[in-house]
């Protein structure tokens, strides 16, 4: 009997040790958002691209279902500009979602034009059926909440295949996929740029908003090559924006191979075959991420309007908008034989390496999602427009305890700038006044 008892204990021990690993794996794998009440109502099939439109409407590009959702957001204006200082944001968000940071995928971020909150398209894991949520981050409280996309006043529309004759031919094979790469709202329409995993065509769709089931697709956009004036190609738009150029609404489009192209907005209509004017090449071996208009202030207080393009493989590109206008008024690069110029006057590189997403936050700041190369984490931070850097990323002689700013106008200017930025970046203790007191 003792033997049997002993072997029964052995049996249980062996079972436990053999299956221990499996049990522990099961115990730690939680469902995303399991500690958030009614988390299901925030989840949608896919969300990759965001854009704000009129009346605080958020457009959500859902590549997985080829849909655009439009959700009315409720927002309260922030009385003062408040920066984001959320380093290791992926760790903060993943903790809230009961997930591992590596499984939380940030696809896009846009700043709410009224509340200055960051709206972020987040994919919950890597699985084929992984859902997405829109996380809303408040810069003042650092609270994270989620947007209920399928609320009563939200609407959506499906991205149709261009031209009825193509309906027959664009088969819904699992192999084909259209990735929405950008959405922009302009005068009653949203414009949707996409990238197909098969044909290298320029696809640009114009969808009336509020949605009424009507949709226009341009047939083709040809862009000139910069160096040899006689060649052109079809190519997909990667990122775009609308602005006035000499009183004319114009689409500024950046391509997957980085030419910058202008297209008059009125040419974008059903079935149009458009010739885009290449006004610049922004550097090769690169793909643009975001394009935005930013105003910078000079030492004399003057304001300059600029076009800013962030890039995946290099620092950002900034060019005065006046140069863009001059380029759009000229013949474009197709009229130039030379290849030494990039096309526009005053193209500058700015230090936005590792920036994954960027948007204008307020008059002074840009909201940024970046990969921190020191920690490897994803940060949600703000930077001053104009300097495009975070002082706290650097250690310089200014940080030495015995450093004294020169007693002149320049020294005073640098001191004031440092004090302002240290406060903004969450280091008020390091401002010069506090240091002198200590």
């Amino acid at each position, binding site marked *: 009997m003792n*033997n049997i008892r002993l*072997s*029964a204990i*052995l*049996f249980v021990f*062996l*079972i436990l040790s*053999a299956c221990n*690993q*499996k049990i522990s794996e099961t115990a730690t794998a939680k469902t995303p958002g399991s500690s958030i009440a009614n988390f299901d109502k925030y989840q949608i099939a896919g969300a*990759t691209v965001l854009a704000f439109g009129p009346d605080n409407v958020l457009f959500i590009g859902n590549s997985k279902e080829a849909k655009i959702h439009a959700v009315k957001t409720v927002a309260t204006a922030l009385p003062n500009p408040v920066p984001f200082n959320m380093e290791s944001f992926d760790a903060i968000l993943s903790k809230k979602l009961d997930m591992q940071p590596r499984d939380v*995928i940030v696809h896009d971020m846009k700043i709410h034009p009224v509340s200055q909150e960051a709206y972020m398209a987040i994919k919950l*894991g*890597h*699985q*084929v059926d992984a859902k997405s949520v829109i996380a809303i981050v408040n810069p003042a409280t650092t609270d994270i909440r989620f947007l209920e996309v399928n609320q009563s006043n939200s609407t959506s529309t499906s991205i149709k295949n*261009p*031209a009825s*004759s*193509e309906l*027959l*031919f*664009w088969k819904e*094979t699992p*192999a*084909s*996929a259209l*990735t929405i790469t950008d959405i922009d709202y302009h005068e009653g329409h949203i414009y949707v740029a996409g*990238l*197909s*995993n*098969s*044909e*290298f*065509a320029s696809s640009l769709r114009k969808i009336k908003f509020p949605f009424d089931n009507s949709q226009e697709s341009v*047939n*083709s956009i040809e862009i*000139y*090559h*910069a*160096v*040899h004036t*006689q*060649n*052109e*190609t*079809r190519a997909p738009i990667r990122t775009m924006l609308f602005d006035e150029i000499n009183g004319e609404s114009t689409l500024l489009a950046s391509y*997957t*191979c*980085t*030419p910058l192209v202008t297209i008059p907005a009125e040419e974008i209509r059903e*079935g149009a*075959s458009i010739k885009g004017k290449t006004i610049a*090449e922004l*550097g*090769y*071996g690169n*793909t643009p991420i975001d394009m935005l208009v930013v105003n910078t202030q000079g030492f004399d207080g003057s304001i300059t309007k600029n076009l800013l393009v962030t890039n*995946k*493989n290099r620092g950002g590109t900034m060019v005065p908008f006046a140069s863009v206008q001059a380029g759009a008024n000229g013949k474009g690069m197709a009229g130039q034989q030379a290849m030494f110029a990039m096309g526009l006057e005053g193209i500058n590189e700015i230090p936005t390496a590792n920036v994954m997403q960027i948007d204008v936050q307020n008059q002074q700041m840009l909201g940024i999602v970046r990969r921190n190369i020191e920690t490897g984490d994803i940060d949600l931070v703000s930077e001053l427009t104009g300097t495009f850097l975070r002082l706290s990323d650097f250690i310089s002689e200014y940080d030495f305890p015995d450093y004294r700013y020169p007693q002149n106008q320049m020294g005073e200017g640098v001191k004031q700038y440092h004090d302002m930025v240290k406060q903004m970046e969450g280091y008020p203790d390091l401002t010069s006044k506090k240091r002198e007191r200590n």
Partner: protein
Amino acid sequence: MNKGLIFIIFLSFSFVFSCEYSKVKEEILPEVMAVFPSSDTLPENLLRMYVHFSKPMKTLGNLENIKLINEQGQEVPGAIFNNVYELWDKEQKGLTLIFDPSRVKTGLIAHEERGRALQAGKKYKLFIGRLEDVEGKRLKEVYTKSFYITEEDRLPPNTAQWTIKAPKAKSQSPLIVQFPEMLDRLSLLQRLQVTDTNKQAIQGEVSITNQEREWRFVPTKKWSKGEHILYVHGRLEDPCGNNLNGLFDHKIGGLKNEREGELESIRFKIQ
């Protein structure tokens, strides 16, 4: 030792074995199933390749581990276009690779300064490192596809050069369409359509064979006798991005049609 003890020990081992076996079973690792174009001779202006995996893969951060390797065993930097979005199919099993279009196209600064990544007369390897599937399991092994590069392909696909082998009526034999050059696999899967003379689509299964030089269509119902139409969409491409309407990299005014995507039709008889 009594019989009861032997029996319990046997039970223990069989349980442990089954636990271990189930662990082994879970450990089936992802693999590269195929790379397209399947040919090992490819043109210098190649724009696109597809990689097919046995399991759904993570859709981010893979391009750092996919490299073009030259004859000296060195990586050709900047060959494969590192997009913000990786281009995966819906099942996350098929990845589209694009050779940097600004180098493939002539007349852009990148082309002028760096030339094409692929040079005619040379051999290359596409190297796929140990990418992760959705569960974090790495590819069973690295994968390489070796190929030889020939002169650029400056001939757009031309339906006049296609051969159609019509099946017999009342059979379910395949309709076979043969091309003198390889065409793009995904384009072939979605840009050809068989209809009757009333433009009613014939349903069936498509397969791509003979290194993307042959399209086979097996109908779900038997073929009926009479005239049929094979519609070809003008956006049908070869792997260099040339389509029925003209070259990817064309002279101004060099396209056949101002409008892209016009349909071409080929009539054939089933007897």
